């Protein structure tokens, strides 16, 4: 089904013969201009297809997930979907393959980013990639037996209760840390491997916080689900809700009014702003610079008050709705309060960038290379700080970003300081975008009335948004009464926690871990959903 074109820049095949060739090679005909292309690929040909796509310039494996067959075919074939960001072509390519039996071609050898999803799929659906590489526990707690609620079948053998494989040489020892950690931070469970002070390895477990959101959303209406989606990762409520609403809207073939999309973008940029201020405060706290922390917290508090004045909620809950937005913007309040709030952040940042004792802690700490970012499929400021210039607002523009094009902030050192610089540049850009989008937001109607659209079809759709942490994706399948049969949520944290392990390893010491964690500014909630 055709998706209405989004924004002023047309995605898809126009002027992109490389993409047309790729699709032809996959056995697909040249499709019309679409931001999302779905291609069926037989399981037998999947490995070859993955190699082909991975070799395409600008291709990035954005997500991997499985949908169980219908209740009638319980135990029958499941559908494996790979979502590729073809960022240079402004297109998402979803390959769909029916997998019968217990195995599918190994993906993580060609696209290493797929490993954690392969583990997740094994726990939830009981199918595994070919080969004998052991799969790790991800979302389900130890002792979760065959009766534990899953999205599909239980695996024949339980996953390993250990972390990703690593080589511990010499005199290293390992110990678990958490999940109850410092005060006022989320529960998170690390395994640390150390030779004393130096970090040899670090791995994360998130099953202690896994809330089964995808399991719980089955059978819900999209509006009911949105309430839960917002509260999956509260610090990314707008980004994740936009991705989810976008997926539902794509499935239903509805396009929110331009003013609603402008309101969403203002909210998304406000969310980016306060998160970057909060990350700045966390960076100061982790380096012991209390005065800088206080300055950043003043900015953060003022920004949260701007959110409350502009949209009625400090964390922007209740802004995004299916078909548009639920809350209208108080533009006068935004205009009068935002400059002072951002000014606080700007001045704090300027002072921080002149404080050498602070910068010394950030430079060369927690280095990620561009190659690692690519290999692990990282997104957001974490990826951009390594030199990987991906940003869903620019690469897959949805109204109003097609017209109000953001400047993508990129650094190349890949260390904590580079991530900090990217966040500061993005904050400035967010303020500019809010002003521009606010000026051009026009038109009546905040949202479409419920039930609008060509009707409730049994259909599916992909949605996305560039949240403060990076690309947040969602995919939904609806039955013919419009209720959810499968909701796939992939906030940015799902991808980026993988980079955290890499960034912490070797050359770093224990006291660097909170600094690196602050520079990533992820949430446990965003991955343990």
């Amino acid at each position, binding site marked *: 089904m055709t998706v209405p074109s989004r924004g002023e820049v047309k995605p898809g095949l126009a002027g992109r013969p490389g993409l047309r060739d790729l699709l032809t090679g996959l056995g697909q005909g040249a499709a019309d201009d679409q931001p999302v292309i779905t291609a069926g690929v037989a399981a037998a040909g999947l490995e070859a297809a993955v190699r082909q796509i991975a070799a395409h310039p600008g291709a990035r494996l954005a997500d991997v997930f499985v949908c169980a067959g219908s209740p009638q075919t319980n135990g029958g074939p499941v559908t494996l979907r790979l979502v590729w960001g073809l960022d240079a072509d402004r297109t998402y390519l979803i390959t769909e393959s029916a997998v019968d039996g217990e195995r599918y071609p190994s993906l993580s050898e060609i696209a290493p980013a797929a490993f954690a999803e392969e583990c997740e799929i094994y726990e939830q659906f009981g199918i595994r990639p070919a080969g004998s590489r052991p799969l790790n526990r991800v979302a389900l707690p130890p002792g979760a037996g065959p009766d534990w609620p899953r999205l599909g079948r239980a695996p024949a053998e339980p996953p390993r209760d250990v972390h990703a494989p690593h080589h511990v040489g010499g005199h290293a020892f390992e110990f678990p840390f958490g999940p*109850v950690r410092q005060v*006022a931070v*989320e*529960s998170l469970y690390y395994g640390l491997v150390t030779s004393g002070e130096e970090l040899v390895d670090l791995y994360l477990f998130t099953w*202690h*916080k896994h*809330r089964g959101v995808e399991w719980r959303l089955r059978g819900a209406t999209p509006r009911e689900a949105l309430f839960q989606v917002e509260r999956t990762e509260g*610090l990314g409520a707008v980004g994740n809700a936009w991705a989810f609403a976008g997926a539902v809207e794509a499935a239903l073939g509805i396009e929110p009014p331009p003013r609603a999309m402008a309101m969403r973008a203002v909210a998304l940029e406000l969310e980016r702003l306060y998160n970057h201020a909060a990350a700045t405060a966390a960076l100061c706290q982790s380096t012991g610079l209390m005065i800088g922390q206080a300055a950043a917290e003043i900015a953060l*508090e003022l920004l949260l008050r701007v959110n409350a004045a502009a949209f009625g909620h400090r964390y922007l809950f209740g802004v995004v709705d299916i078909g548009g937005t639920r809350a209208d913007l108080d533009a006068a309040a935004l205009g009068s309060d935002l400059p002072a709030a951002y000014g606080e952040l700007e001045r704090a940042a300027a002072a921080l960038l002149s404080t050498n004792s602070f910068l010394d802690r950030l430079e060369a700490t927690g280095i990620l290379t561009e190659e690692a970012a690519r290999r692990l499929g990282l997104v957001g400021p974490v990826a951009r700080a390594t030199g990987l210039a991906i940003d869903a607002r620019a690469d897959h523009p949805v109204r109003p970003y097609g017209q109000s094009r953001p400047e993508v902030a990129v650094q190349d050192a890949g260390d904590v300081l580079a991530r900090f610089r990217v966040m500061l540049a993005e904050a400035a850009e967010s303020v500019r975008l809010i002003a521009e989008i606010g000026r051009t937001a026009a038109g009546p109607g905040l949202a479409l009335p419920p039930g609008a659209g060509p009707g409730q079809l049994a259909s599916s759709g992909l949605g996305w948004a560039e949240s403060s942490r990076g690309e947040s994706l969602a995919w939904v399948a609806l039955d013919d009464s419009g209720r959810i049969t499968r909701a796939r949520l992939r906030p940015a944290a799902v991808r980026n926690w993988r980079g955290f392990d890499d960034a912490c390893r070797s050359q770093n010491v224990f006291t660097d871990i909170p600094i690196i964690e602050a520079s990533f500014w992820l949430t446990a909630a965003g991955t*343990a959903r």
Partner: protein
Amino acid sequence: MTSQASTDQAVAERSEELRRTITRLFGRSLHIRTLDTGSCASCEQEIRLLAAPHYDLHRLGFFFTPAPRHADLLMVTGPMVRAFENAARKTYDAIPDPKVVVATGACALGGVYQPDPFTRGGVGDTLPVDAWIPGCPPSPLALLQGLLVAVGRLAGKVQDLDFALNGIPQ
């Protein structure tokens, strides 16, 4: 006096005695430990802001501590993910008596999540709760009020509110 009435009176007297004890013990300064049982992270962000310049809980004699041994009050967020219950009980047990448990935010109070295989849908079945702070998330002002009510330094308001309007709603 009937048996029920005398039981009620005994309970009321014991509650009042407890309240006086708490005020005497916690009326000055106390240390707070937090516990995330599966929150969305926004409650934690509001709690962090209690130490920020706009709110400064230190001026009221409250301090955060990571060490449960040092804590007097436990602020619990999240719907009590079942896989976390063991860690939650260990944290509670590690805090010496006397202690106050404050269920913080709608998830901990039984909203947002229903009991199901993944979560208990609230913290009340796992830990003995002394005070409840509604909100999603509760703002730092609501948290300050909640802490003061929990230690008996402020009288609660909500028991006297009926949430019924007489005129036209705004």
